[in-house]
């Protein structure tokens, strides 16, 4: 919407009068406000409830607090203390960090090297391999889970000859990192290759003339120049892994001392389904970090999410 349209008041060539357009504006505003309020209410209800005492939550709706906002008895942080300690949410929060950070860093590193090779190195089968890598984006996660869990718990053998030893990776961080790395790589390679491939050829050539090897060109030139693309993918992957439930459920599963926030929260839904003081506080704990990322890095966030929308 350009400002020119709004300010352009000489309406003689237009069918609508000034008053009509003002009315239009108000209808638009009203509809947008209604939708925005509808979108906010669920989160507000959750947040308000998470700070209410347990007996208050179970005897009155969260919207009743607005009568007694300033009464100290209305509010408590006891729910958070409870869910963090007794219900293991703090532990799960640490586990989520332990899963998410490496599961973001490792694929980016591996993908960046591969993307550079696909963009600037000459080797046989380069085009076809790249097409295959991009094509792997169509494989749904579900197609890989059963064999991977089987390898994790028992290795793999062909005609009785073990080709992959029993690594006992089920229920370990390592197993989840590698899984997320595998699932994240096609998109990461695709995005980074496009970006790195669009860097000006002249820069690469001058680096080469100055005697820089591929490795040095990559580290000193390509990586610093690719920070925007890397950041977008990093945010996408970080949120994807943090919010992931399926991969964690399969590979970390019931092992409670390594379970991540989403798993822990889902378990609480099962075991304490009516204790809303615990569930609301727990849910908010799972959201804190992604919401911070959202408000802190909104621009990269949008870019990362839109780019990552095709991920399987």
């Amino acid at each position: 919407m350009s400002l020119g349209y709004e300010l352009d008041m000489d309406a003689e060539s237009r069918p609508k009068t000034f008053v009509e357009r003002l009315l239009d504006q108000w209808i638009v505003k009203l509809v947008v406000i209604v939708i925005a309020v509808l979108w906010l209410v669920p989160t507000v209800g959750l947040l308000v409830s998470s700070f209410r005492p347990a007996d208050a939550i179970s005897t009155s709706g969260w919207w009743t607090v607005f009568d007694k906002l300033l009464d100290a008895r209305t509010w408590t942080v006891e729910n958070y203390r409870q869910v963090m300690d007794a219900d293991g949410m703090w532990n799960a929060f640490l586990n989520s960090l332990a899963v998410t950070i490496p599961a973001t860093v490792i694929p980016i590193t591996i993908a960046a090297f591969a993307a550079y090779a696909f963009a600037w190195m000459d080797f046989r089968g380069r085009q076809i391999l790249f097409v295959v890598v991009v094509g792997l984006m169509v494989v749904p996660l579900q197609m890989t889970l059963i064999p991977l869990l089987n390898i994790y718990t028992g290795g793999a053998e062909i005609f009785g000859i073990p080709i992959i030893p029993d690594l006992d990776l089920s229920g370990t961080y390592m197993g989840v990192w590698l899984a997320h790395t595998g699932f994240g790589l096609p998109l990461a390679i695709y995005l980074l290759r496009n970006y790195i491939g669009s860097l000006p050829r002249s820069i690469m050539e001058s680096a080469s003339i100055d005697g820089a090897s591929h490795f040095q060109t990559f580290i000193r030139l390509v990586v610093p120049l690719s920070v925007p693309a890397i950041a977008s993918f990093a945010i996408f992957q970080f949120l994807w892994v943090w919010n992931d439930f399926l991969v964690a459920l399969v590979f970390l599963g019931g092992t409670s001392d390594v379970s991540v926030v989403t798993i822990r929260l889902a378990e609480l839904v099962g075991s304490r389904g009516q204790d809303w003081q615990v569930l609301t506080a727990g849910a908010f704990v799972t959201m804190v970090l992604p919401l911070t990322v959202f408000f802190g890095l909104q621009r990269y966030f949008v870019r990362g999410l839109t780019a990552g929308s095709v991920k399987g």
Partner: protein
Amino acid sequence: MTGQPPVLPDTDSDQSPPSDSGPTERVGTEEVTGRDWLAIGPIRFLVAVGIPAIGFMVLWWVFKFLRDSEANRILIVAVAMVVGVIGIFGLYWGMDVVNNTFPSRIGERVRPWIFVGPALAILSLYLVWPAVRTFWLSFLDQNGESFVGLDNYIFALTDEKMLTAFRNTVIWLVLGTTLTVGLGLTVASLVDRLKPRPEKVAKSIIFVPMAISFVGASVVWGFIYTFRPSGRPQIGLLNAIWTWLGNEPVFWLRQQPWNTVLLIIVLVWLQTGFSMVILSAAIKGVPEDILEAARIDGAAELQVFWRIVIPTIKSTIVVVTTTMIILILKVFDIVWVMTSGEFGTDVIATNMIRQAFRFFDDGRGAAIAVVLLIVVIPVMVLNVRRFREEEAMR
């Protein structure tokens, strides 16, 4: 192709032959011969074998540590990060150094594979091989031992729960896609008429749920749908409104088929922001002068929207729609957490996980996964192709 330069300090330039100054090593011959290998010399041989050996030992040790460690989580995270960044960089660097000890004609051929090799290895192990194996498993029995023909597929296409899942998936597709894309388009075109600041605030509010996990959102909405028996105060918003209107409270998540609709609303709440953001960007790209011209010709705003805006952003609408379809075909978390697929809310993915990891029936689980793949692939191919076109136009 660049060779290894002699001037830069942090490489072992005394061991690696600069590609253009190697006449002492290669006398006239263009073939890779035994003389090239002899020229490697004992020191290089040691480096070539030693560095990978040390690298492998370190990695193996770290691997065992990370797998078995009872250590403090923060320490594990720290070690993992060091391994993740420095370790993996070191791995590539080590391979590069080793490669530099080879005669350059071989080295330059091998070098690209050092860069892409690890990625290809992980992709093969984590995507290609499991996908092929799943396909194979879908023809075997529950333990993956004996061949059962098409039994698993017959199960996947006729089992009562699977039929429920297919029915629900259709409801999800129709309602979920229409609502996310329709609402996203509505909001995107409405906020476009606001001033920049309110527009930004409104878009942020609707986009925020994108940051929330499906599990978190399930709790948020589970609280809204929660039920208390008649006579007690309703703490769930939906039942509070419902009883305020004079009705008896309802256990919403058990009301077939409305419970599926309620689950779809959770997804709509989460994903409308996505379609809004993409569509909003597309709407802003519609040339202003065309819109002006239409308005001057006397077109009403609705006509402008249907006749000009929609046709112009059609390809973006297709992208958003296909993305939603793929997401919805694979929807899992919301159903698993809110109803466990009970009360007639099952979808394809919940059935797959239940068969494979609750009933430990690899064959049936694999067959359902293949069914999912077959449903997803056409849409996905279309989507990836569109996505590439969009990228190419940028």
